[in-house]
């Protein structure tokens, strides 16, 4: 699951059965510092997000499970939340390295 920013909408008049009525949004995947991570993608929206919103995205088969009715649809990116508040600590604050021997975290 990842963060993204809604950049716009996509409209398809011809869609495969089961995906009629789905709202498609063009999103930019982001990392924790809200920098772009990879190219623009299209997500099926289930929470009524709009352009400019910071959002929570789900990839893979689980994206299709977010759909309101039919779950067996060819959807691989879903917008499942609108972010109100994001708190991220600076990079230098934590040690991400596993050392040989005991690593104690508590």
């Amino acid at each position: 699951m990842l963060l993204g920013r809604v950049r716009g909408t996509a409209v398809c008049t011809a869609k495969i059965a089961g995906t009629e009525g789905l709202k498609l949004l063009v999103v930019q995947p982001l990392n924790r510092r809200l920098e772009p991570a990879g190219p623009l993608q299209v997500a099926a929206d289930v929470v009524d997000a709009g352009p400019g919103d910071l959002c929570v995205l789900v990839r893979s088969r689980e994206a299709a499970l977010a759909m309101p009715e039919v779950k067996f649809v060819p959807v691989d990116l879903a917008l499942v939340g609108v972010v109100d508040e994001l708190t991220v600590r600076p990079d230098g604050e934590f040690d991400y390295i596993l050392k040989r021997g005991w690593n104690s975290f508590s």
Partner: protein
Amino acid sequence: MILGKVVGTVVATVSHPAFKGRRLLAVRPLAVEGDALDEDFLALDTTQAGIGDTVLVNREGSGARQVLNNPDAPVISVIVGIVDSAYLEI
């Protein structure tokens, strides 16, 4: 499952029902010395973990749905444990 460090929190009031009542956290995977660090991802918490905690994360949808006891949860990553220590032999 992977080991990761909780680096942030996400508040999403408008969200899919499967996310209600649980915290969404930003997690960065741990790495051994010399390896490149992976980018962070979001995971749903089931353990009351907080920023700075080292956690065990299941990054697969079927396991996540089992943990959440919801066969239709659109969730991939779930925090399933808070790690006290880890021993790396070689």
